[in-house]
């Protein structure tokens, strides 16, 4: 079923988003780093923190929102629901495959981000050596942390025929997530709002963001556990809703 999803993503504009978003993120981060060299200490860590600041706060989650809408749009259009629902595939597998395919796109996006950070940092900004392994770990962890956002946006886009409405709700989630983080409430709440979880993950070990946790097994474990629990809950909910769905 995941393979079928991957066939559907062929020649789809989804990959373009997964490419353009990291390119812009790294470009903007590099420009910002170069422009503020006097104020920032030199090195990979400050460069990284410039790159992930708004990416973690807003653009990764919003990217996911747009990707999820685009992925479900294929089913809403051209009467593909009837096709999908008259196969022996169980609802949980249908939703799960969508989530997995989207997670794969996000993983690709993160990989592009990492490669670009290394290339731009080395060749353009003249940073020495290679980015520390922590950044790769954080980028990978962000894929895990992004799965609840993927699951939620997928549920929204599955239930709502409109393309834009789930994106608007995703923006609301980002605002809520940023509010939770900036409000300093943190703790449990920041692990319950999916968009805040993405931010927390990307800001791990980041000196530029206030209140960000350090990259230690405890923090990573909490994020992975929260992401797993949230994803499982939303996945199950989506499967139940899909099974009860009435085709009009």
């Amino acid at each position, binding site marked *: 079923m995941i393979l079928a999803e991957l066939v559907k993503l062929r020649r789809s504009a989804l990959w373009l988003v997964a490419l353009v978003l990291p390119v812009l993120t790294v470009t903007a981060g590099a*420009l*910002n780093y170069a422009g503020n060299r006097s104020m920032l200490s030199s090195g990979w860590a400050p460069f990284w923190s410039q790159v992930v600041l708004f990416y973690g706060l*807003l653009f990764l989650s*919003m990217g996911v929102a747009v990707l999820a809408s685009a992925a479900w749009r294929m089913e809403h259009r051209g009467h593909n629901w009837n096709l999908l629902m008259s196969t022996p595939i169980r609802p949980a597998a249908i939703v799960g495959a969508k989530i997995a395919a989207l997670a794969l796109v996000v993983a690709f996006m993160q990989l592009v981000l990492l490669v670009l950070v290394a290339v731009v940092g080395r060749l353009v900004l003249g940073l020495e050596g290679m980015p520390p392994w922590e950044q790769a770990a954080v980028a990978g962890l962000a894929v895990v942390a992004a799965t609840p956002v993927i699951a939620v946006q997928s549920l929204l886009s599955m239930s709502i025929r409109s*393309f*834009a*409405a789930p994106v608007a709700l995703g923006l*609301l989630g980002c*605002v809520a997530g940023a509010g939770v983080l900036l409000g300093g409430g943190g703790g449990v709440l920041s692990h319950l709002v999916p968009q805040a979880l993405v931010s927390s993950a990307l800001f791990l070990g980041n000196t530029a963001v206030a209140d960000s946790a350090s990259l230690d097994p405890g923090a990573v474990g909490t994020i992975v556990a929260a992401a797993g629990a949230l994803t499982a809950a939303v996945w199950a909910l989506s499967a139940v809703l899909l099974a009860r769905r009435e085709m009009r």
Partner: protein
Amino acid sequence: MNRTAVAVELRKTRRARVVPVLAVMVIAVVALSSANLFSDSMRADLSDPSAQPWEQLLLNHVVVAAMTSPVVVAVLASRQVDIEHQGQGWTLARVCGLGPGQLCRAKALVLGAVLTLAVAVQSALVAGAGLLAGVEVAFPAGMWARYTLTLALVNLVVLFLHLWLAARVDNQFVGLGVGLLGAFYAVFALLMPAWVALALPWGHYAAISPLGTGPDGGLAAVTPAYGVLVPYLSAVVVLFAVACRRFDRAEEGPA
């Protein structure tokens, strides 16, 4: 402007839930802009002019508005135009004597009016949050009003761009993708040299910021480059009008 077209658009906004979407976004933006007003560390600064509480609050509003407005505008424009693509609306309007360009202008008028109202309410609410939190420093009314007005204008221009885009491209993916990238650009324009902010309309969300970094590292009032902004914005309005005219002349729908 055709009154029938406007009346019809108003009716469509009800189905597209424009007002609820905007209301929720306004509340969210206000909440996020004023979140740290109520934190403990901020308490002591509320009555200290050197801590610049109003300026801090306005800057928060600038950042949050730059982050969210491009997406909100893209969502509204995309929804309002997509109904025409979905339901053969262009053809329906054409046989009723309304050209696609007229339809787009009516959409611009209706959405523009609600958006402007939303910006005014939003700005007033942010100021209200400051008063509620107990800021005792004098309120910089002039700066606040100027920013509110320019934010509304930039919104309108970006709305025109998105309406045109949504009419031309029958895929909401494109419009919302551009909106997302626009938000990206707006946020980063806040941190970039001024010419970056002025280069694209989305950067104008940053270019209209009435605050910058002063010589002492604190916030200082700056005058946005109105000399560039106003002609730029006017040019987009003219281009939109020209594009609408071309829609009317073209056969069939605009896409």
